């Protein structure tokens, strides 16, 4: 049976957006109430936290996810616009303030524990600097 993994699909939008773009996208999503009638079957299948985190990491590492993400980055420069005015999102014009897709830079290289982590206090999990 054909399957459409929703996590993979979401990651394909989140990963090319970079950290700031993903933060914006998720903030928009979490602020939007879900219509219960449409999502009850999906919600029933929610996993516990550890399994959910593991499945995200698994999907994030799949070549197919990364291919889909690359394709989304190229194919949907107006994705943000769509998310705002058509699907989830603020519906108040918040998205189009940012001047477009992929203008946010990309913070995912935090994974490498490198230079780009510096200055925000997270990489060693010490919070007092």
């Amino acid at each position: 049976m054909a399957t459409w993994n929703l996590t993979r699909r979401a990651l394909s939008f989140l990963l090319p957006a970079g950290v700031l773009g993903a933060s914006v996208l998720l903030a928009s999503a979490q602020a939007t109430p879900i219509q219960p009638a449409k999502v009850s079957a999906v919600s029933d299948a929610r996993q516990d936290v550890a399994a959910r985190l593991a499945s995200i990491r698994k999907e994030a590492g799949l070549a197919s996810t990364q291919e889909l993400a690359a394709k989304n980055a190229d194919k949907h420069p107006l994705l943000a616009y769509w998310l705002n005015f058509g699907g989830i999102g603020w519906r108040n014009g918040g998205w189009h303030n940012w001047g477009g897709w992929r203008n946010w830079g990309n913070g995912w290289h935090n994974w490498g524990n490198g230079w780009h982590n510096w200055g925000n206090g997270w990489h060693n999990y010490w919070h007092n600097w």
Partner: protein
Amino acid sequence: MRAPEKPVVPAIDTVVLQPTPFCNIACKYCYLPQRNDTSSMSLDTVRAVFQKVFASGWSQPWLTVIWHAGEPLVMPITYYEAAFALIEELRPDGIEVRHAIQTNGMLINAAWCDFFKRWNVGLGVSIDGPQRIHDIHRVTRKGHGTFDKTVAGIRLLRREQVPFHVISVLSTQGMAVPEEMLDFYQKEGIEDVCFNVEESEGDHVSELFAGADLQSSFRDFLQTFWTRSRQTTQIRFLREIDGMLARIFRPEDAPFGNAQVQPLGMLNVDCKGNVSSFSPELLGLKNAAYNDFLIGNIHSDTLEQMLHSEAMQAMSRDIAAGVAACQAECPYFSVCGGGSPINKLTENGSFASTQTVFCDLVHRVPTDLILNALDHLEDGLANAARSSDILTPALGRAAMSDASHAVGDVDATTVRSSR
């Protein structure tokens, strides 16, 4: 028969130096016990630290040096000029060093701005929000508010185009007003924001931590701040959320670790050359079981001796036991890596323990918010795919087409049952 355990090779990720324990103010929630002490770290001590770190072969290729006191800027610029130049002289090829300073911002002037820029210093300024909130806790020894001088420092940093982030300690008052906090950052042009909930640490006992509703209060605060801040363009980095995103959405094989629970992962040195490891807040605290958390002195001991000292062995054993317990029982371990030893000790009375209130605030609340948002996003995508005709037509069709291409023919039933 068990194979002999391989010796663990330390990886020094961060060096925390205390140029002086002295602080020019007396915040009501400060955990530092010696902030009236005007001693200072000699350049000989700086030299000894980096000679030993670089000679050890244990430094990470990117080494963060945090000057954290006390108030680091009570030391003159000439001191840091000499210290940074000395470290640069000693630095071997293959290791990059970046300096960071956490300051209350009150002493920042044009000369400091020039220094920060020349050395690309990662600068953090402690400010708790608008004046009525900041001045509740961040006061001089005479009890006067420090807001005016701190915000003057921030404005100068902006004028001089010095990048910086702020750390705001959230106490009861700040936690109640996320919109007011956001308005303040926007008004002052602050772009990178970190929140520390006022916690019980060292000798300081937080009233907030004793409150029954702390976790839900912080969740409400963070959710509102996150939502509102992302409706504007100004806040570029919200540490509590954006830092966690990179941990949640990492591939399984991405490097991941918690230097705060690794022996010598963080090397913390006071102005007299005394050395501790793990959480920097341990340096200066008293504890008979762990030799006051001191593993040696940089002038008299090698790093090898420190690694094998009794205190280090005892702390390593107990901290590792705590991390192992976290791994066994905590669903958030993959985004945390074993927590913060100082908080385990302060809150639970033992390194060999697990969940703390600090964990709840720093790891659980942001993770739950992000996972909840991801759920909403996935549901929104599923709904959109099922009803693309109500969406902006061209983009709706594009999304459906893309989805079909990726998975073959998809209908609403398979979307619903595929998670």
